[in-house]
């Protein structure tokens, strides 16, 4: 068996429940999933406590590789981020032209916005978007609430507050406590969310199971994985787009 650290958003999508049994069947390999924050996943990899990681935070991933903690980065699939908010959309982001405009509308109307606030991949993306919208200083605003929690907890908070929130599509679709929230904005290409697989460097940690990791990587980028990922739907919606290069 091997240990794989993944982020909460990936696990919340429910895709792992489809992939893991298939891996077990095809490779006779038990993958032990450690569901943690992005930062924590990287630290687990750095310490050699897991054999590989699957995260979505490009900059952090590259820093991880640059420091020599991983061997290489292999893109597997992407999904996208979406903007969620109250059904009646008081900020009116539904008809925004792009993500930048949507965020500006939220800021102008001073509607409550709940941020992950935990330095995760999603949070980093969100911060980049605010910056792109010339609103880098939102964190001081009273309507901007930094929850400092995982995706699920943040969604629960947003649902409780009836506030705007940015989430990855998979987590949103799998989320059971929607309350009065609805998906209001999606589709801007800047919202794409790339997942990548990084094996831990065996030179630093000789005990990692490099051979098994390689097997897993090949499977994840292979045909069966593509077929499973490309057909994984919730409520008729496709969650992930497979984009691994063979």
């Amino acid at each position, binding site marked *: 068996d091997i240990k794989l650290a993944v982020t909460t958003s990936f696990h919340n999508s429910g895709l792992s429940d489809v992939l893991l049994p298939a891996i077990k069947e095809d490779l006779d390999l038990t993958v032990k999933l450690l569901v943690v924050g992005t930062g*924590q996943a990287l*630290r687990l990899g750095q310490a050699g406590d897991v054999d590989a990681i699957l995260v979505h935070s490009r900059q952090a991933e590259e820093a991880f590789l640059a420091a020599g903690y991983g061997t290489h980065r292999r893109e597997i699939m992407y999904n996208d981020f979406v903007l969620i908010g109250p059904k009646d959309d008081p900020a009116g982001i539904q008809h925004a032209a792009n993500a930048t405009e949507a965020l500006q509308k939220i800021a102008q109307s001073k509607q409550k916005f709940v941020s992950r606030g*935990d330095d995760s991949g999603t949070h980093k993306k969100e911060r980049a978007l605010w910056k792109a919208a010339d609103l880098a200083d939102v964190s001081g605003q009273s309507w901007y609430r930094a*929850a*400092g929690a995982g995706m699920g907890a943040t969604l629960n908070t947003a649902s*409780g507050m009836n506030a705007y929130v940015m989430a990855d599509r998979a987590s949103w679709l799998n989320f059971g406590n929607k309350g009065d929230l609805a998906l209001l904005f999606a589709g801007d290409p800047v919202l794409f969310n790339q997942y990548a697989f990084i094996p831990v460097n065996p030179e630093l940690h000789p005990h990692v199971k490099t051979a098994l990791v390689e097997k897993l990587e090949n499977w994840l980028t292979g045909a069966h994985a593509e077929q499973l990922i490309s057909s994984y739907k919730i409520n008729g919606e496709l969650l992930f787009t497979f984009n691994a290069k063979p």
Partner: protein
Amino acid sequence: MKCWGFCRMNEITQGLYEAARLIFSLDSDLLEIVGLSLRVTLTAVVIASAIGLPLGAWLVINRFRFRRATIAVMNALMGLPPVVVGLLVYMLLSRSGPFGVLDLLFTPTAMIIAQVIIILPLIASISHQTIRDLWAEYHDLLISLGASRRQRIMALLWDGRRALLTAMLAGFGRGIGEVGAIMIVGGNIDHSTRVLTTAISLETGKGNFAFAMGLGFVLIGLAVAVNLLIHTLSRTERASVW
């Protein structure tokens, strides 16, 4: 830089350093978080004690049909998982819940409510045990003097006050270190409902282990300070029963 299998230990040292830095710089964010932690937990302990201590005493002096079962359930509720309590309080306080109109969700009040629920069984159980021994000693006398139920409870609580402190301190400990419930009902919102434990949890998720440890040491230091203060004030260790 080669890691000799002890680089984690460095993180603990680093944590101690972080703690010292935070304390000596009197970081205003830290003060805010510490203040809220103390406010929430101390309030919860006071409320839970006001209910739990008399409840514990009441269960001692009254014999009724399902007394034994009640006590077992009370003991069992010491095991209430914080996350479940958090969920329950969340549902009750949520806008679509029965108390939604009060708009208490994501406020310190909600956190206090959740902590009271978590601490209460602990305080009630331990005080029940303590008072039971005292009641065995006082039973004949208090009955003989014709003390009413209320007077019996008052006498037991007053004369057992030193021992009951342990119950309250256990409640304080459970509360100050708790994270599952207040995360859900408080939301860990920066400058509003963030307390030490939720901050530690956040930093852990970020992978900032040293900083998380630092906050942890601050929390432990805080708990030690509160305990020392209370022990000193109440002079518990001065005399054995007195």
